[in-house]
């Protein structure tokens, strides 16, 4: 592309219908979710992928394929009610152990969470293999370290996790609101133990996490 056309397109983006086609083609072509930023980078200058996505999402409503949001990215997926047609495509995933499933749920609902916190919730130690398996599945990742003695590493769920379970974001986890309302996501120190520095920090983290969410929710609603 010459500089001339680039400059031109600064002022004139393709019509929205055309942008919608472009987003459709890009999402259709890849099996991985694509971020809005990447869409914009690949589309002609001046294009507004976010708006085009909204149009496209609407267009695919009720179709055999749907446009779904995965964290900050977007992807096309077949409608879940048609899964029965796809026996051929079904991939046998390694069966996760009960410990694996519970550890995954705890990470999802309590993220960012340390191994010690997972063990505290489950009441047993978490084996290295369980964490490794979840990491290998790319369902969890390392979060930032906690600012507590020993600076323990934390775990969080990934975009792949959201994609796998068809979640738009970690906020859409089933029952999250109820759990929060019931105080079951708070970390409560056992009575008698001094409110350790790390507990205070933890609460702060949790507030952090949900404050950020609050902003996002507002943003989304504005749109």
């Amino acid at each position, binding site marked *: 592309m010459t500089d001339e056309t680039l400059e031109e397109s600064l002022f004139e983006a393709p019509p929205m219908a055309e942008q919608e086609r472009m987003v459709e083609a890009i999402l259709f072509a890849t099996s991985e979710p694509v971020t809005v930023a990447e869409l914009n980078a690949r589309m002609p200058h001046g294009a507004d992928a976010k708006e085009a996505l909204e149009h496209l999402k609407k267009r695919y409503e009720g179709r055999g394929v749907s446009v779904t949001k995965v964290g900050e990215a977007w992807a096309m997926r077949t409608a879940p009610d048609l*899964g029965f047609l*796809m026996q051929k495509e079904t991939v046998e995933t390694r069966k996760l152990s009960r*410990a694996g*499933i519970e550890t995954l749920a705890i990470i*999802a609902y309590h993220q960012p969470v340390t191994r010690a916190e997972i063990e505290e919730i*489950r009441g*047993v130690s978490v084996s290295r293999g369980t964490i490794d398996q979840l990491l290998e599945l790319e369902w969890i990742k390392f979060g930032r370290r906690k600012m507590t003695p020993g600076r323990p590493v934390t775990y969080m769920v990934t975009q792949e996790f959201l994609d796998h*379970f068809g979640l738009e974001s970690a906020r859409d986890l*089933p029952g999250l609101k109820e759990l929060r309302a019931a105080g079951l996501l708070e970390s409560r120190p056992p*009575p008698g133990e001094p409110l350790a520095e790390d507990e205070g920090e933890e609460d702060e983290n949790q507030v952090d996490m949900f404050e950020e969410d609050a902003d996002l929710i507002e943003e989304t609603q504005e749109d």
Partner: protein
Amino acid sequence: MMDGDTQFGEVEERLAAEALIVDVDGYEGPLDLLLMLSRTQKVDLRKISVLALAEQYLAFVERAKTLRIELAADYLVMAAWLAFLKSRLLLPPDPEDEGPSGEELAAHLAFQLERLSAMRDCAAKLMARDQKGRDFFVRGIPEDVTRVRKVRYTATLLDLMQGYARLKTKEDFRPYTMDRDHVMTLEQALERMRGLIGYAGEWTDLLSYLPEGWESDPKRRRSATASHFAASLELVKNGAIQIRQSDIFAPIQIKARPRD
């Protein structure tokens, strides 16, 4: 054969023991066992009787002991703690004791059980969701994004002029440096560069300023490079140009300082 009853009793005992071993193996630690036991109370976990639960647990451990089942250490630790909790809950509070009350400890245990139970429910709900590769599917024939390497050719105005000058002077080309030594002085370089920098609107390799005839012979090249470098530093000092080098041994680039 000698004592049929005893033998029968032993078999029964052993079977019961095996069942218990299997059960204990089926639990993921004392908290899990407590959660299972709490189910027998058939009430909301928030209204559970921790005292009754503690008694159930202790009875369970007692039974395991009589059957000589080796319980993992953490089951015994929990038993000891629950025995302590039980005494706290039954005895009137000791005003001398500064530790947490039995009620507080019981409440925390109830919280832990409720939280574990909630996480189990969440895990089940999560796994019951539509899953990728099972209920919904990704694109079967992904089209790879090809990475295209595009070469963009570029040239500076200085290149252009030097090229033209080279052509126009080809026939009668006779570098004036021929009748000098293999040394270029700082003054010469400075003189030259003053005339040239006006055209260096963009970053240009300092070496491209070397005069014709000084680039190939190593001796002359060295001298010219050194004097041009010194001259460019001089020009930087005067504020006429800017100079940069991205890395050690990377090309030194200069550019006319934009006039304000």
